[in-house]
């Protein structure tokens, strides 16, 4: 019986991590070891990365190599089944609360695209427009509009339309999906959901009854047009670790209603430009790199706003080297610089004080600009008709090819 969070997180821990709030203790860094321990998931160690490489016959994704995706639940079961010839499907999603997407938002999607390509499996993407309508007090129309806009950026990450189904809750909830929602809802008491998500008597009933919506895409029977007759199909969910509570609840319920528990593979949080302790917020455009930023914007933001671990003067820097622990350009390069050897070299030289902050920032600007440019070009090719096609309830006959 795995550990299930049943106390209000705000009460005892100083670190708060749940789907609606992420904050470290005393304005410090998130302690991921503590988090893994508290949530009860497992560390993804090197043996997993090697195994993935073997099974997929291709180099593992940079996020795996660098420990960006660092925790999991039952990923080994997925791999065991895969080795036996049993496929699985992927499930990820986005809460469309704003039009402006930044690089942090793209991370789970970049990784999911890699998983789709490497394992050749289908993918469902949930746009929780209803959740944002409720939590952010958006109008129904606005949240639906944002969902479609975000869908375009998601599609631009390069998903294969013949293996991908994107849906918005307002459009899709009903039928078999809703039946599963009720099955899940019957298994979770009010007290339990308050314990997991921290709801209070002041929260409206929409919020309280939302969790099943995010739970049931983990079950293949929620998508009869895709997985009819494949009730045994397993599900792997790539997400950021703050989504863990939803799926802890789901995993608890699954065996009780006769389904496989979904497996999870979880990522770190993407730090704000101003540093780990800063918050990336939609109202501060300088806290993140947006996919709509021009090369000039990126250069400006990195040069002026990225928090560095470099010393105050060149002499001091040459003597002591940079503090890699807090240096944002190094952290960002860790996420996005493909070449392992080059990253090692930069870390070594910068840490020793031979390389200056300006050079590291320059390299980062190049890397980020290339990514944003590539995304923009792909985004320009996404039409409303393409969004309609991705979101149409249609069979995907080649989804395992």
């Amino acid at each position, binding site marked *: 019986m795995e550990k299930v969070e049943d106390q209000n997180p705000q009460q005892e821990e100083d670190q708060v991590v749940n789907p609606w709030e992420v904050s470290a203790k005393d304005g410090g860094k998130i302690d991921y070891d503590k988090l893994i321990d508290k949530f009860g998931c497992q560390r993804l160690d090197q043996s997993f990365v090697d195994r993935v490489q073997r099974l997929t016959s291709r180099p593992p994704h940079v996020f795996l190599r660098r420990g960006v995706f660092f925790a999991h639940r039952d990923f080994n079961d997925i791999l065991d089944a895969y080795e036996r010839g049993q496929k699985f499907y992927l499930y990820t999603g986005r809460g469309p609360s704003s039009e402006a997407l930044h690089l942090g938002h793209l991370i789970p999607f970049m990784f999911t695209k890699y998983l789709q*390509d490497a394992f050749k499996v289908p993918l469902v993407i949930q746009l929780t427009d209803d959740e944002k309508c409720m939590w*952010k*007090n*958006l*109008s129904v*129309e*606005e949240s639906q*509009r944002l969902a479609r*806009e975000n869908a375009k950026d998601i*599609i631009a990450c*390069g*998903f*294969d*339309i*013949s293996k991908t189904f994107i849906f918005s809750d307002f459009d899709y909830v009903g039928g078999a999906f809703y039946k599963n929602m009720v099955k899940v809802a019957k298994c979770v008491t009010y007290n339990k959901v308050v314990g997991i998500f921290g709801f209070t008597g002041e929260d409206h009933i929409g919020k309280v009854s939302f969790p099943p919506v995010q739970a049931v895409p983990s079950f293949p029977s929620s998508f009869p047009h895709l997985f009819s007759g494949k009730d045994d199909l397993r599900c792997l969910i790539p997400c950021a670790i703050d989504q863990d509570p939803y799926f802890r609840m789901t995993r608890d319920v699954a065996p009780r209603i006769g389904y496989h528990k979904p497996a999870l593979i979880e990522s770190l949080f993407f730090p704000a430009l101003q540093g780990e302790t800063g918050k990336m917020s939609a109202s501060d455009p300088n806290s993140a790199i947006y996919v*709509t930023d021009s090369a000039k914007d990126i250069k400006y933001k990195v040069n002026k706003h990225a928090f560095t671990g470099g010393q105050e003067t060149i002499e001091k820097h040459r003597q002591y080297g940079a503090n890699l622990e807090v240096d944002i350009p190094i952290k960002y390069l860790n996420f996005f610089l493909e070449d392992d050897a080059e990253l090692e070299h930069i870390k070594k030289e910068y840490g020793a004080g031979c390389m200056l902050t300006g050079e590291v920032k320059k390299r980062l600007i190049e890397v980020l600009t290339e990514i944003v440019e*590539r995304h923009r070009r*792909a985004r*320009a*090719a996404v*039409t*409303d*008709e*393409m969004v*309609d*096609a991705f979101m*149409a309830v*249609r069979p995907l006959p080649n989804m395992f090819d």
Partner: protein
Amino acid sequence: MGYSKDQLLARLKELQIDFSQYEHPVVLTVEAQAKYVGNVGGALSKNLFLKDKKHRYYVVSALADTKVDMKVLSQRLGLGKGGLRMAPEEVLGEILKVPLGCVTPFALVNESASHVSLLLDKGFKTQERCIFHPLSNDMSISLNAFGLDKFLKSIGRDPTYIDLEANPPVGKDQPPDLASLVPLGSTVLPDLPEKTPSQDSSGNHPSAGNNSTAVTAKADKPSSAVQNVKEKSVNGVRPSIPSTDAGKFVEELLDRTSTLLLSEISEDSIKRHGGQLGAEVANNIRKCLREDLKNLATIVKNTAYTEGFYAGTHYQPKRL
């Protein structure tokens, strides 16, 4: 090719919209217009052509007396405090296809303006008749707001009337009330400089010569601008992005490969690898281009699938 004044008037008659027309010398301001049509029994309108930082455009059409505060409007649209400004002159002709001083809701009849959002003063509804330019400054037409609505609906627009003088609070729990009026796609215009010509040419005042070169430099590009301004066409016109053209796709692939190939072969690399240079370059090309080309191929695949999907959902079954 922009809609002409005569075409517009013919269209209004076709739609049986009741209007009166008044010819007068060319006017560039509401004050000048008032001299000629100030007492024909209609309310004068002032029309602003605005843009935001993401190259999205808006026509704000209001009664001449209504106070329009750009800062407030910007916030209500969700663009922040200084997000709206007057659109530059060059863009007026390219998008609305009307001359200076002639911004009018009727300009939205043009395909190039399909992305432009229209904000109408609810004050129009209380007037018997309102006066607008019919795509040219040497004439004014007066019509009832119902007539305007009928026209707008005929070009696939849903007329939205708002209280332009309202100033509702916008904050964390009060989302901008006009956010749904922000256009879905941004209008992609070729490399228009954000700065005015005077700033570019080291402090010279924008002379007529300066402006004309600026305009002609862009004159050869409007077709691509119009093509890019497609995303959500008013009447659901099919996308015309060349991404499924096999020829263009192959050219793109070959371009990238040969650029990389040429950069890999140099005196230096020949010396270094000698006979093995071929294998070395082939390897590098694979390594560098693999992901990029796969992404390109996925875009082509998705676009082709979408075209097929569209065709499939719009096909007419055989009549038996």
